[in-house]
């Protein structure tokens, strides 16, 4: 890794606005490294947009808070990736997979994230599988296919083996057990989307009014402690 390399590749893969104004805090003077700040952090506009989804409309965010959150996100990615990478090395694998990432999150205390992320990933794979199938004109099978020989064991992903297509990535599977898997399949149309599913500001207002404490009902410490990742599933 060469920290002084000047990466000029466009950073905006997948809809995020890359390279927005991150350099306006004036503390870059005197650095011998030329790595672009844009490469180290998520675009601040995206970060702010995500924050605003859980803040009341009247809330303001100071500039140093925005930057702090930006830094925290990068630190989070590095933190999880290091753990996932260690696991890959222990198991003598070269590719960090989604399953490694989820495993690392669970190990490092973010196990609350694992289930919604698994649902998200499953849904994404099914969607990608549908898309691929329609292009190739093959029938779409939603049933779980026969077990495919893979690195870690039985692969629960419908995207593997449904069309008999060779998988380019290392095989991955979730530690979920079968009933767990079916549970998500059945409910996938009922709850999807974490915070983006809210259609109106009013709904969001209702959500975080409880989170930050309704003056009438008193403290909502429990709500914050149990930070409800499935808020829109109810």
């Amino acid at each position: 890794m060469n920290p002084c390399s000047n990466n000029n590749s466009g950073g905006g893969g997948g809809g995020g606005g890359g390279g927005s104004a991150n350099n306006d805090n004036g503390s870059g003077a005197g650095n011998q490294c030329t790595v672009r700040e844009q490469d180290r952090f998520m675009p601040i506009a995206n970060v702010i947009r995500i924050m605003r989804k859980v803040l009341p409309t009247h809330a303001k965010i100071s500039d140093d808070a925005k930057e702090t959150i930006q830094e925290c996100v990068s630190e989070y990615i590095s933190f999880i990736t290091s753990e996932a990478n260690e696991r890959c090395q222990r198991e003598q694998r070269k590719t960090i997979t989604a399953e490694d990432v989820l495993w690392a999150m669970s190990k490092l205390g973010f196990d609350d994230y694992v289930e919604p992320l698994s649902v998200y990933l499953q849904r994404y794979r099914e969607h990608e599988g549908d898309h691929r199938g329609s292009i190739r004109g093959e029938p779409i099978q939603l049933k779980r296919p026969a077990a495919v020989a893979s690195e870690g064991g039985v692969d629960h992903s419908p995207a593997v083996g449904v069309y008999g297509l060779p998988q380019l990535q290392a095989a991955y599977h979730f530690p979920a057990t079968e009933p767990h898997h079916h549970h998500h399949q059945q409910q996938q149309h009922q709850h999807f989307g974490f915070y983006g599913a809210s259609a109106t500001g009013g709904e969001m207002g209702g959500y975080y009014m409880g989170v930050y404490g309704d003056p009438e009902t008193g403290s909502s410490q429990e709500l914050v402690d149990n930070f409800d990742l499935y808020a829109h599933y109810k």
Partner: protein
Amino acid sequence: MRQAGIYSGMMWGKKPCPHSLPLSRIKKIMKKSGEDVKMISCEAPLVFAKACELFIQQLTVRSYKVSVQANKRTLQKDDIITAVKATDVFDFLMDMVSSASVAGDCMKPTRERTYGFMLKE
């Protein structure tokens, strides 16, 4: 630019949702996390994009609760520091948020800890 329709759009089988965070940037940060990070499956940044949303929102909610308790409407860095100290899973952020560094310094947080006293002279 509303995002409300994105996830529900995906739910009904429309085109895949554009992610809130750029996958290529996530991949870069993953690669920088260690010298020996070799290959990354295409789904790993995808999982991170969603995970980072959850992370940002969890941290924001906890931090803003601190602001509210102090009768403020503005979420400030000190509120984030308080929230980080109060939450076990955020322990890995302790050194980074507590240091006097600001975004823009290209040195890694761990190096800032080591050389911070020199930079401040």
